[in-house]
């Protein structure tokens, strides 16, 4: 059965960053991929997005304090 996991209201917004965007994020936070929070290849969201190892996902979550909060997670094996 195919379920669109992103249709669930609790599911945050995901976006795969292209390499330019990814570089600018790393530059903005002055860090390398290994310093970012990680997400597994086996994660349902990663599978659904068909992201590859090393991709950086931009995740926009609802936030109690800020309304919306943007997180970045790097896809790992």
């Amino acid at each position, binding site marked *: 059965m195919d379920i669109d996991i992103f249709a669930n209201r609790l599911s945050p917004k995901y976006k795969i960053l292209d390499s330019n965007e990814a570089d600018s994020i790393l530059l903005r936070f002055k860090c390398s991929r290994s310093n970012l929070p990680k997400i597994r290849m086996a994660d349902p969201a990663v599978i659904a997005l068909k992201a590859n190892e090393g991709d950086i996902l931009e995740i926009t979550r609802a936030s109690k304090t800020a309304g919306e909060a*943007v997180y970045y997670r790097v896809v790992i094996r």
Partner: protein
Amino acid sequence: MRLDSNFVFNKIFGIEFGVLSPRMIEKMSSVAITSSELYDIDGFPVDGGLADMRLGITDPGLICRTCGNTIKDCPGHFGHLELARPVFNIKMIPKIYDLLNATCDSCGRILIPDSILKKATTTMDNIETREGPLGKKRYIRKLIKHAKSINTCPFCHSKQHKVKLEKPYAFIYNGQKLNASDVRERLERISDADLQFLGLNQDYSRPEWMVFTVLPIPPVTIRPPITLESGQKSEDDLTHKLTDIVRTNQRLAENIKSGAPEVIIEELWDLLQYHVTTFISNGTAQVPIARHKSGKKLKTLEDRIKGKEGRFRGSTLGKRANYSARSTISPDPMIRLDEVGVPLQIAREVTYPERATEINIERLKSLIKNFDGYPNASYVITPDGIRKKITESTVQNILEEVKPGYVVERSMLNGDIILFNRQPSLHRLSMMGHSVRVLEGKTLRINPASTLPYNADFDGDEMNINVLQTEEALAEAALIMNIKNNIVSPRHGLPLIGAAQDYISGSAILTRKDTKLDKSTVEDFLTFAGIDTKLNKSTYTGREIFSMLLPKDLNFEGESSVYKYSKDEDAYVVIKNGKLEKGIIDSATIGKENGSLLQYLFVQYGGETTAKFIDQLSRLALITLTKFGMSANIANFDLPERTMGEIHKIFEEGNEEVNSMLKNYDKDVEQKILALTNKIRGRVRNATREGINENRNEINDMMTTGAKGSIMNFFPTAGMIGQQLLRDVRMSNGYEGRLTSHFKRNDMGLIPRGFVVSNYRDGLNPIEFFLHAGSSREGLMDNVIRTPVSGYMSRRLSSALQDLKIAEDLSVREGNKIVQFMYGEDGLDVSLSDKGDLNI
């Protein structure tokens, strides 16, 4: 720190743990110990004795005969003692026991067939790569367990007799005692090839090395003699034990040489074994404890490592700090909340190194001159780092010598910034910067307004101060860590420092609408509070006096606690241009973990203003309360006849409802009754609240101002206590079908199941009292059990999060690893916000 060319810089690749071989012991030894004497008649160390100068140096001025260094650089050197007969290392007994039973008693091979061994090598490697060294250890333990259960050697097919261990260190084989030599012989027979299956290694841990033939003698530097005031030398416990070992060993050797009877040799051998055992460990079961003549336990090698005071927990994870002091705390409302009262004795003893400059040199010189008084200086440090003590005989020279660039260690002075701390240090506010106020007495004094962040009270609590020794640390303590800048909590944005109890009552009385004071009283008040203003009126209202504390441009509006309670418009706080127009200043505006006014002041005017405000206000509140007085009395709990009747009716109605419920029995009846008892409690509470006589009722004043107590304490005191619960249900256990023998069996009504109709003021009847005590006991038990559990949980959480910090770009990081891209997702400093929100 100075880099010394003697240092060798290398990266540690790994650590191999093993057993020292006799050859290794001899190789690393610089002396063979031959004499049990320490010193000769002239007091010089005997060659080959336990204080031999080749073992290292403990006296300043002497030179080590092994390395040629003085006491400062000589690390100490091992010696060795050739044992006349081998003895066991007590710590190796369990391993030896395993080895003896896991190997063949005739051929020495491991008691596992070759076919399995061949596979075991690869399995072991696989487990090690998969599960790491611990997995390998588990596997080896399984192998040994298996080998111990086999009765016929798979290699030489001989029948196996198992060795029995008679604690502490006797091995019985076939009914006969194996001595250390026999055991060593058997261990020698174990082949190198089998060692890997036993968790050993031929290069680092041959099994026979677990039996000493040569004993390593630790360097004197780890067991230095202490010179007593009488000039006599007192030897270390380890040295005492070593002399016993050497002496016994000598006697044993002589007896063997002279061909003494076997019994005597056996006896001495056992004695040697005992001494070697108690040299290593003094806590082995069934080994008598070695003691001093005074009966004090000897400190053994094991004691130095093990336990709370051992090397790891005592020396590596925790250390004693210099420039610190500790004492009982007591309250002092007359010092500022950012001060700490320091006893003169502490202020004299604990020093701060102040660097001399053109500006302060004269002041420092006067401190040096006053070296035996207070304020004083006790040492000076020259620019080349030489410390000179200031004494009667050195003052003159030092006074002439001191010039800018010198460092003077002077006593604590009023206004110095120090750190103040109370354990357990659960959050960052457990250690804050305070300003010193030297006082008489022996306790550390703290303003009661500042107790909450430390969780301190005055029932015997002790606290620590740390005098900062560098300018950088001082700057941090004076600014970032200063208590004045930490009045508002970073957790919820409310002030942790503020008024409590009496101070709230006092300020509420002061700011009541009808409080009026004549000029001379106002003078008293203002003097006490430390406010300097010109008075030009003959009478003042309390609110006018309060307004004198406020910044002239302050505008503030907020609910007071009284307003929340009574919706009395006059109690609603309005401050315009620094004037309190109306409102009662109570816990909702100035209370700890509450005060909206304090929070507003802190955000708008900063810590300095807020601290000054709290200080002046609490003194004002104090003298108000002193002058006006406030006494509660038992009549404060009087409820009108009408209310008492109402409460009685509420109970009667409830009781009837229960009875009718019980008549029409259904399975949820107990639940329904429980819900009903809660409803009764709620109705009693509301009826009580309605009925309180508010006229001249100090208890009510304390409740409404938030000084102390609430309706939850009031209604069981004045109205009705209500249902007693045990494990969240009505009480039911005791006698068969009833709580006590005073009730009918299986009566499920209100009173037979623990409903208390009385109140605290009128008193409970004996049965009510008993059942009420049951409920209270549960509360106490829960508290006792829950406190350490939740404490441990929060400790684990703190430990997991302790390295998080907010980076310059407001991201939260652990090291360089990003945990949160924006602190709190909105990047706000809660302590500078409006209770976590942005208020523009």
